[in-house]
């Protein structure tokens, strides 16, 4: 197997994914195209040399539907010889894109690829893609919304509202400190209009002033007797589900796009690129959908085993903060040092542009490994219906 290297990576800022978000006026195709164009520009790569463009999208419908990756390639002004493929694994879509790119390179079938993802949730709202898993009455009898599942997890693990809120405050604080010291500047591309006016140049959802008192005012979001009982009949030791998650301790909807340039050693020489890291291993797994985390935990174990690593070997973790209980559980389950987890804040602070998040977490991990001069990072995302995807990257000596 050949090494699959990451040569470079770039992302947009994360905009508020609700009405009035700064990126709402930007089409998802435009958003992604700005990132893609700049990624090739700064590496000096001609687009015809790319083998493919792999983009993850969470809701591949409407403006984001109909093979949006090809639309992005065309809109970015890339050569018509460049194809494009859209990947969907819900919240882990762009992590999946990167894993697929790395596989194609390792297998020797492709040499140079862009992998990433996009999501404009302010324009194509969450769940716009519908789907039988969630709403077909004959298929959905196992379905438990992730929010209820997160509350179930908190109930089983006896996390208190305080525990959950504390992590949220922590997340905002770390994110805000990272913003202050311009930790993201290498990989952050401000999004601009045609006439050069800046729409957004920073992650706008981070709130440096987040406090426990402020969060205490929010009402629980996921009360629903039907889903509660679905969960309780699987975990009958619970009398009821404690509804503890609210808008302040879950990842808010966001807009954004991100992309990585990946290739093999030959391409590094040909275009005089210095590899920043390589993909060590990746894995996908699935488990009880009512618990969110089983698939994710399993994918972490699988990826570690594939890479022949122990959890202690990992220097930095980027774990998707979809819900506070999920991150607390991962830390408990693997006995992680919280100081190594989401060191620059997580999705609770930044927001979660579904299809772009995986690539964004990889980018954060890579930048921070370099800043700290460390080697190994693990990125993991738990997603819809109990699935989880993990990728381990390792920095490459120049």
């Amino acid at each position: 197997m050949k090494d699959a290297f990451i040569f470079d990576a770039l992302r947009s800022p994360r905009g508020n994914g609700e009405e009035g978000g700064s990126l709402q006026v930007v089409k998802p195709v435009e958003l992604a195209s700005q990132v893609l164009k700049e990624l090739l520009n700064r590496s000096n790569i001609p687009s015809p040399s790319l083998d493919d463009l792999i983009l993850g999208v969470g809701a591949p419908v409407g403006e984001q539907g109909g093979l949006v990756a090809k639309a992005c390639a065309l809109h970015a002004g890339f050569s018509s010889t460049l194809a494009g493929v859209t990947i969907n694994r819900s919240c882990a879509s762009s992590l999946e894109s990167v894993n697929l790119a790395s596989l194609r390179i390792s297998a020797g079938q492709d040499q140079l690829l862009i992998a990433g993802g996009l999501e404009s949730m302010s324009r194509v709202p969450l769940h716009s893609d519908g789907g039988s898993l969630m709403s077909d009455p004959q298929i959905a009898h196992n379905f438990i919304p992730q929010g209820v599942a997160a509350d179930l997890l908190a109930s089983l693990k006896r996390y208190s509202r305080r525990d959950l809120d504390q992590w949220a405050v922590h997340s905002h604080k770390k994110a805000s400190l990272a913003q202050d010291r311009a930790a993201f500047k290498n990989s952050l591309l401000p999004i601009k209009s045609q006439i050069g006016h800046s729409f957004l140049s920073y992650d706008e959802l981070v709130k440096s002033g987040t406090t426990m008192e402020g969060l205490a005012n929010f009402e629980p979001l996921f009360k629903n007797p039907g889903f509660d009982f679905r969960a309780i009949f699987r975990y009958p030791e619970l009398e009821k589900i404690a509804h503890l998650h609210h808008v302040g301790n879950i990842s808010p909807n966001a807009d954004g796009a991100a992309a990585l340039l990946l290739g093999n050693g030959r391409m590094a020489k040909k275009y005089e690129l210095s590899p920043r890291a390589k993909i060590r291993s990746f894995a996908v797994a699935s488990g009880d959908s009512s618990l969110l985390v089983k698939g994710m935990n399993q994918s972490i174990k699988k990826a570690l085993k594939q890479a022949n690593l122990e959890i202690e070997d990992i220097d930095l973790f980027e774990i998707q903060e979809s819900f506070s209980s999920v991150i607390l559980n991962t830390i408990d389950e693997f006995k992680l040092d919280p100081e190594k987890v989401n060191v620059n804040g997580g999705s609770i602070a930044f927001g979660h542009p579904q299809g772009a998040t995986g690539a964004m977490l990889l980018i954060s991990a890579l930048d921070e490994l370099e800043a700290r001069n460390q080697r190994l990072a693990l990125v993991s995302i738990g997603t819809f219906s109990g699935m989880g995807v993990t990728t381990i990257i390792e920095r490459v000596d120049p």
Partner: protein
Amino acid sequence: MINIQRMENDIITLSLENRETGKNLINEAFITHLETLVEEIIRDKNTLGLIFTSSHKEFLLGADISAFTKGKTAMEIFDFSQRLQKVFNDLEQWPRPVVAAINGSALGVGLELALACDYRIAINHHTIKIGFPEVKMGLMPAAGGTRRLSSLIGVKGSLRILLEGEKYTPLKAKEHGLIDALVETKNDLIENAIAFIQQYEVIPENEKKRTPSLSAYSKEGQEFFSNMAAQIELDYRGKGEAPKRILNCLYETSLLPPEAASIVESQSFAELFELESTQRMIQTLYYGVNYCRKIGAQKKDQLSPPRSIGVIGAGVMGRGISELLAATNHQVLLLDKDLTSTEMGRGLIQKDLEEKLKRNDVTKFAKETILANIKTLSNISDLAQCEVIIETIDENLQLKKDLYAKIEEVIPKETILITNTSSFSLQSLSENIHHRDRFVGLHFFSPVKEVPLGEIIKGDKTSQNALIHALKIVHQLEKTPVVIRDGEGFFTTRIMMSYIAEGLRCLIEGMSPSVIENAGLALGFPQSPLSLADHLSLPMVEGYLHSQIKASGQELIRDSIDQKILGIVSRFTQKLERLGSRSLKGFYNYSPEPELCDAIKEYEKPKDPTNPISFEDIKKRLFNIQLVETMKCFEEGVLNTAYEGDVASLLVWGFPAETGGVVSACHSMSNELFLQDLQAMALQWGERFSPPKILKTLINKNYNSLHEAREILADALLEES
């Protein structure tokens, strides 16, 4: 069959009258006739409009279920449904105006026909019922009803109506959008129908009433279907597959053109029909209920209605019974311990009626009539004027016995004395009664209006006359009677108590109360064991357990499990003064929301890793104990027929309907495997699970023999009475 009349104004009236079925029901011949007529009418260009009405008391009731259940294959059912769909579609697509002039009840297919019309007018009378009751028997509409209803009133309203299976008065039906206009008389009905037709040559598309569809592709639609799928699993657990199928049908209808939606509906219906759970529900809720009602109805002509009925006790049960009796035109004489209490009781009935009037549940006239029918008594001696007396005072053996003695002093010897006790045997209550032949038990359940069953208890001395009086009252209250032989807890209380006691045993063994409660709910019971105990009231549970211990001669065995169970309940009633849900404190706290109280959680012990007890184990215990106890009731002759056991179990404590009821559950499990299972359970959990003799007999003979035995027993009862 269908009387056709062409009026001078070129409007045709089709008056439905199915003489074959007695009541206006749809059967094969009826459809054939309808098909022919509709085809002719549609071809005739001169006809200006069409009115459907009926020459019967009813407009049109559902399909004839007895024709339905006999030897039909799913394929035939599908074809039958498609035929109905076709003729209703033809009517709907015919450009001329069609009016349903609803002069009597329109249920099931009857309402589907009305929905295929362009306009629906009904006579505003509270005896007329309009709705889709199919779901209660595990079925759903199959003549385009799901599609037409959702396009008329929207998906959300349709789902509620189809799931609840409620039969509405015309007033309520209009509120729900099922009816367009109400009139007072039959003449007005036809006049209004003609007037509607004469407005139009052809009804323009934009004047047809429509509610925009809630597409499963919209965000709102997705959330709705997703949430409802979960909600239905919870709310209709144990009640068959129909609720889920109805939701699925509405989901697909929202995505499909009418032709395809029609196939989905017919397909769903045929599939439902084939399910064993549906067949069991039909067996009990149609045949079983009819069987029980027939016993009540056969007696009704032997007696004139009682002049007046005395109701003693103006508590929840007394008030409920009085209101219902008064609503069915009985003269009620209410008596509580003194005039103030009695007046207060009547005041509460008045208040209740006023609330109902606000919600349109009664008309002003009905409210006034009911109140006029309830008079208060100031003295026990006033009871002399009553023909029948119903006692509903607190469940206290001594109080009841003392009261009977006082009553007997003042009433003539032919007055019927009925007790609404929920647990004491007639024998224990009748010690002070001289004329025991007049004494009969009639167990109503709370809330009186909602629970559609009356459990009649026949004591050893109870006369035929007293029994008939009780049957007649149940019949007149439009409830279903079951006749049970006297014994502690009769049938319903005894089985419910076995379920509660098993829950308490699990608790004593240290299992988590949450797991016990969830096991009951997961089995499909509306109430979990501890919550049911709270609902019945803990003093009543305590009294029952106490008398059982007494009866079994265990009083002196101090540490028996039964004593320990009683100990828990007594601790709650006496030491903690927690009496159940009515006082908002029992095994649960009820304010603000029901939640297991700390005192009950104390019984949970840490799990024993060497002897893990699974959720499935607890479910099996809670379920099987009811089956064993039911078989014993059969054995002892407390229960006479399988139908009565099944019907009572479904209607009273919500035994999962898809099993057909507690006796059917015994039947479907009466095999060698179940026998061995019970023997193993007896070894592991206690003797109470030992298979009763009757089960062994059943298995040794064969399934038919039980059926025959049941029939023989039923015949014997009929002959006897």
